[in-house]
């Protein structure tokens, strides 16, 4: 049964309907880490489930549905109007040095992307993706001065709204460019309550936001029949940043800070080993450093992500397993945040890095016209360490991506 029988002309409405549903959904809880309580928050892998199953190696992905958010050139061969959304559900187990262990379930919505092929062969894309995730929640007693109890809700992080243009320059060469606006903010709601009924609850809002400024990303891909190379470079951007502290009847605003989103690059490859198998790899680096944001509570190093993956392409014959693609991957991530060591009050008491590794496996289905897809990936990994940071997280993530398309835009 061919999909095109059902989609045109209803496909356009289906895309719009899905967009409306997704937009109307209440914002879900974010897949936060216990290390999101300080610093910039958990770095988010913005890729779809297909690339996540390959360890996040997407720089050399190409083809009608090979969309990667790392390299703008990857959408150059898009043929239809496509909408792709990704949802991630995570289970975390946190082990602490002296507080035992606990588990948590969260979900997030790393990215959504709309791609449309324009007349003339240029492809236009728009996307919204999470850069970091700073959601957390803390409940703790406080004994400084009058005894009180604190409830803190942290939300926000760095997000990106992006416009992409890409096209195929030659038979083997593809190019793309992103312009993305750095959006988002860091927001914390502090509620301090007292056992003494005459003391009213103190409610404070802390917010860090910045001027919504943009930066560029340039991407190239060179693809032959059995291999492909891809690389992208993203420019840095200095963002004037404002700190707000609000409480009932008072607001303190501090300006003069800057958040410098650093430049960075990604480079990757894809090599076919045989007719149905290929290996992918990628290295990604963003040059965060101690000048990125002046703070006594966090220091920075370069973000680095190493990704490798293997994909067995779906076959046309055989049983169910043979007709499904199989993807496995691994990734190693160095968070840019250098957080105070366990027991320290700030970075002057020493800092420790957050390193994260994960392995992944995934599969998916593709529509006959190769425009629509449903992909899943399962990931497991670990981050942090008990000796330096006082806690270690083991996480399992399930990612679902859905791409629907309308081939009437051919």
């Amino acid at each position, binding site marked *: *049964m061919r*999909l095109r029988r059902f989609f045109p002309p209803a496909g356009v409405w289906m895309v719009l309907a899905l967009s409306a549903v*997704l937009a109307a*959904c*209440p*914002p*879900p*809880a974010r897949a*936060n880490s*216990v*290390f999101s*309580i*300080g610093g910039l928050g958990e770095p988010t892998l913005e890729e779809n489930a297909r690339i996540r199953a390959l360890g996040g190696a997407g720089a050399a992905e190409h083809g009608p549905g090979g969309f990667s958010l790392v390299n703008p050139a990857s959408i150059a061969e898009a043929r239809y109007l496509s909408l792709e959304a990704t*949802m991630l*559900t995570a289970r*975390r187990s*946190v082990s602490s040095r002296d507080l035992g262990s*606990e*588990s948590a*379930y*969260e*979900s997030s*919505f790393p990215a959504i992307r709309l791609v449309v092929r324009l007349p003339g062969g240029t492809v236009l894309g728009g996307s919204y993706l999470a850069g970091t995730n*700073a959601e957390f*929640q*803390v409940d*703790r007693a406080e004994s*400084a*001065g*009058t005894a*009180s109890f604190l409830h*803190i809700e942290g939300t926000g992080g760095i997000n990106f709204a992006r416009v992409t243009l890409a096209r195929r320059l030659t038979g083997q060469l593809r190019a793309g460019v992103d312009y993305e606006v750095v959006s988002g903010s*860091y927001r914390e709601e*502090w509620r*301090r309550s*007292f056992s003494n009924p*005459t*003391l009213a609850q*103190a409610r*404070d809002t*802390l917010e*860090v936001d910045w001027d919504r400024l943009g930066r560029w990303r340039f991407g190239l891909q060179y693809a032959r029949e059995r291999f492909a190379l891809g690389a992208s470079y993203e420019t840095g951007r200095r963002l004037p940043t404002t*700190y707000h*502290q609000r*409480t009932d*009847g*008072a*607001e*303190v605003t501090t300006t003069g800070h800057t958040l410098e989103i650093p430049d960075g690059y990604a480079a990757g490859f894809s090599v076919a080993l045989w007719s149905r198998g290929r290996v992918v790899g990628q290295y990604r680096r963003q040059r965060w450093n101690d000048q990125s944001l002046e703070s006594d*509570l966090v220091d920075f190093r370069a973000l680095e992500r190493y990704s490798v993956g293997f994909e067995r392409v779906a076959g046309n014959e055989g049983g169910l397993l043979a007709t499904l693609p199989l993807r496995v991957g691994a990734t190693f991530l160095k968070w840019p945040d250098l957080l*105070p060591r366990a027991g320290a*009050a*700030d970075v002057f008491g020493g800092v420790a890095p957050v390193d994260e590794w994960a392995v992944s496996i995934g599969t998916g289905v593709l*529509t*006959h016209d190769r425009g*629509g897809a*449903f992909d899943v990936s399962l990931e497991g990994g670990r981050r942090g360490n008990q000796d330096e*940071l*006082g806690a270690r997280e083991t996480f399992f993530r399930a990612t679902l991506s*859905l791409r629907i398309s309308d081939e009437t835009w051919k």
Partner: protein
Amino acid sequence: MRLTRIVLATLVLPALITLSGCSNRADRIVGNKRLIRGPGGLGTTVSVVNVVNRDTYVAPATANFGPALLVGQSGPFEALSLFSVSSWKLPDETRAGFVPVAVHFVLPQRVILGAAGSLSAELSLTAAPWNSSVTWPGPALGASLGSTNYNFIGQLRVNLGPNGYTEIQQWAADTLLAPGFALVRTSSGNVGSFQAGAAVFRIFYHYTGPDSTETDSVDTHVSLNAYVHSAPSPPQTGTETSLIFGGGFECALALRASVPPIAAGNSVNEVRLILPVAGTPPAGNGAAMPDTVFLDLDILRIRGTWSQGVTDEAGLTTDAVAVSHVTLAPFFLAQGDTALSIPLPRALARELAADTTSNEGILIKIRNLNARPVPTSYRASQTAAESPSFLIGSRESSRPPYLRLSTTSPPPGRF
């Protein structure tokens, strides 16, 4: 087959995104230790206590236009009620057999619990019109119109006598002939509380009906009413060790305490006046003060300078509108309550702290003090002379009033 999967996924993905929003966050325990925000801590709550540095009590000298009208005398307290009529309503004198019978001044009482004895009162014309500026002892009186000995049962009625209807005809023709009316006590020892806005002049008359002589009446409602009362006796000097708060004299408290500076970004958790209760003034009938149930307070900001020697509320320059209206928790003397704890608006504390030169203190008044009794307000039992009243320790006493300000320093920032 594939179409089914896609459609299914189209439905499942948004649903999962929505449904998986709930999470069991782990950070509540482990995250507490990772909440590292510098050596300054996470904010500290402190309380500062300042004893008032100026205090007195003041009584209003002007008329009370509230929901109650008081008439009578009890101890040093005395009150009379004033009325005026803007237009009169006369019966239809053309009706067959019309004969005026009587004219009564009728004044419903408020529900009085425990009232005893009687109240003798006289209704008189006032010699001149009165208005909102009238003060004790009220306008000069004109001719007496009638009197009554009221035993607190039913409505108070004054019969204007055989000339009543003729007088009303004259007043209707020329309202200047009746510039106002006063209901004045002629006996001692009791105070009546009556319903404001309910007094009428009722004209009874006969007329010839279809079968016999019928009786009917026409009411003329008073257009304005109020009462004035005497000043506290002995008058306050400003150096008393006790401040009278409330009571029949409607005493309000004028208090000033320094408000310490509030650092930028600090939360104000509490700003509260603590008024130590030293006892109750003696009631007119000598009764001890029973428990107070609820107390509605109006808090007005004083704008002009004042001294402790001020006795009249008019001597204070206050805002026209209360900065706060609070209902206090029940105060039970018998259960060991020792102070009135009055929360003040936190915004007011910020204002006074930001500009100490503007701090002239506040005036605290009990709302509708004499508009009793409402079953849920003020007293479990009372007599007509009683109003909720307290003796508050002054700054000259060993238990002075004080202001308590609690603030919390702001939490440290994320970065």
